[in-house]
């Protein structure tokens, strides 16, 4: 047989038995794949269930309260005789406390991440990271009392006009609680930046800080952005610290030195309270929950978009 002759032949179309697909094996693989797919798709089911529960209950609420009132009223007194349903009030509390928390968590978290990934030695990093993660594992109610009975008095010494309940001290403690999320994830993202980029920078005569700020951080942007988004979601969703230390006083303010109520603290408050279920007052928690969900959804979509936009290019 000569090569040149055989090569002119077309490719055969028959398939020998030994090479044919095996039905039993294929079936087993398919079944396993379907099971695994179901597990992955379950998360979608959870989301749908959450939306369903929230929308169903909020629906009844919005039949009584026009959406415009909900969005634009400047008072939140749903349980009072003279009821107002301005979610802005709770939103302002949520945004202010989250703002304070992020002012703490983002710079500190980022600095810690840079420090651990670019400056610290291996030992320190391996000790510090789990230690930081502990901060994320402390029950939040413990933080709440810490803010109220430890931090607030200290702040009052510096700033005597500060009320005993305020968004500031709750926000600060919340910030410390969120540090590990920001720091740990950002650090992971930075360490994922290939050494070759760092070597490139050092080879130009850059210092550690220059390398960290000008090369590593930009290269890890998308990972750092995810860390921030998660931090923001955590801040917006935090409940017990605010319920304990922020005063639960619906207050349309962006001044952290005032007491305020947030969406989450309002929800636990009412969930534990003496209101009859099914009343409008009770349904407010679902409307508030829906607002919260939409907010975190927006943040996460933003995060997704950022990740796509700034996908690591190394």
């Amino acid at each position, binding site marked *: 047989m000569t090569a040149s002759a055989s090569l002119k032949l077309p490719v055969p179309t028959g398939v020998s038995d030994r090479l044919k697909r095996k039905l039993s094996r294929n079936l087993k693989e398919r079944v396993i794949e379907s099971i695994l797919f179901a597990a992955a798709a379950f998360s979608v089911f959870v989301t749908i269930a959450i939306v369903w529960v929230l929308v169903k209950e909020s629906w009844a609420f919005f039949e009584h309260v026009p959406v415009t009132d909900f969005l634009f009223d400047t008072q939140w007194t749903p349980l*009072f*005789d003279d009821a107002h349903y301005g979610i802005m009030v709770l939103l302002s509390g949520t945004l202010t406390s989250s703002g304070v928390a992020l002012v703490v968590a983002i710079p500190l978290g980022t600095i810690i991440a840079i420090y651990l990934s670019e400056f610290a030695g291996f030992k320190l990093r391996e000790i510090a990271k789990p230690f930081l993660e502990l901060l994320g594992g402390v029950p939040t109610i413990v933080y709440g009392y810490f803010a109220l009975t430890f931090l607030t008095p200290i702040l009052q010494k510096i700033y005597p006009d500060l009320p005993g309940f305020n968004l500031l001290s709750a926000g600060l403690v919340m910030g410390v609680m969120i540090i590990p999320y920001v720091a740990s994830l950002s650090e992971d993202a930075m360490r994922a930046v290939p050494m070759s980029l760092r070597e490139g920078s050092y080879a130009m005569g850059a210092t550690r800080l220059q390398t960290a700020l000008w090369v590593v951080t930009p290269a890890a942007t998308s990972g750092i952005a995810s860390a921030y988004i998660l931090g923001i979601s955590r801040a917006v969703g935090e409940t017990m610290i605010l319920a304990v230390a922020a005063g639960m*006083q619906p207050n349309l303010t962006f001044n952290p030195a005032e007491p305020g109520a947030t969406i989450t603290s309002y929800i636990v408050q009412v969930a*534990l309270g003496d209101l*009859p279920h*099914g*009343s409008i007052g009770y349904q407010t928690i679902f409307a508030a929950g829906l607002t919260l969900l939409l907010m975190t959804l927006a943040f996460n979509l933003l995060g997704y978009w950022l990740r796509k936009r700034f996908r690591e290019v190394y």
Partner: protein
Amino acid sequence: VKIDGSSTVFPITEAVAEEFQKMKKNAVKVTVGISGTGGGFKKFCRGETDISDASRPILKKEMEDCAKAGIKYVELPVAFDALTVVINPKNTWIKQLTVAELKTMWEPGAQAKVTKWNQVNPAWPDAPLKLFGPGADSGTFDYFTEAVNHKAKSSRGDFTASEDDNVLVQGVSRDTNALGYFGFAYYDENKGKLKAVPIVNPKGKAVTPSIEAVMAGEYEPLARPIFIYVSAKSMERAEIREFVEFYLKQGGKLAKEVKYVPLADADYKHALDNFSKKKTGTAFGGEAEVGVKVADLLKRNPKE
């Protein structure tokens, strides 16, 4: 025995449950939850619990739910909660308060207007007025607003609210210009940090809250009865009957132990009587009332 409901009633029910289990040598299992009065009634009217703790009478909406599910119940007062108005110990200018003065401070119209002590009474200093109170979702709030502003849930909104009365204690004890109200037990435990304000009762006498004063019916109008509701269906079970009877017999003593004000002995007897006669329904008709005497309540003919 499944019990759920108000956190205000919880300490008494817990104490009773503890003693009852001890007496029964753990043969009967009792659980007590704190879903709040509303949460408690929700479960109660779905038939999930045997007894509901309530810091306020059952409301219309809840009565309908119960009726729909065919749940009948016996309403039993078990103790008093004396709402205590407290101020900071460094506050020297207040010796007593009238309901009218409280109203000036707390009425909805005061919001953002009455912000200084001297706006309530010119004799008082020109110092900021800082108010503390329970959250608008609580029975305590409902009762206080009803008693002071004569309309439940009608209150100014710019005060510091907390579900957790210890948080309020913290707040008032740290601020000379603060005034707040909450259950008597919290005051009693924190006497060193707070000062209770004597309230001028409808008869014109300033009364300092105390167990004796409440029992004597003098601390008005801020003493409120608290209740348990027992499902009629559950009453068919012997252990429930035994538990409730135990509650009404020992409840007074235990209530005192956890710093609540017991009812008069006669009232417990009367309640026990109502219970054994299965007098179902509420004496209130779905609305809160202020200043009714427990003895009167027990005499009323409950409606369903």
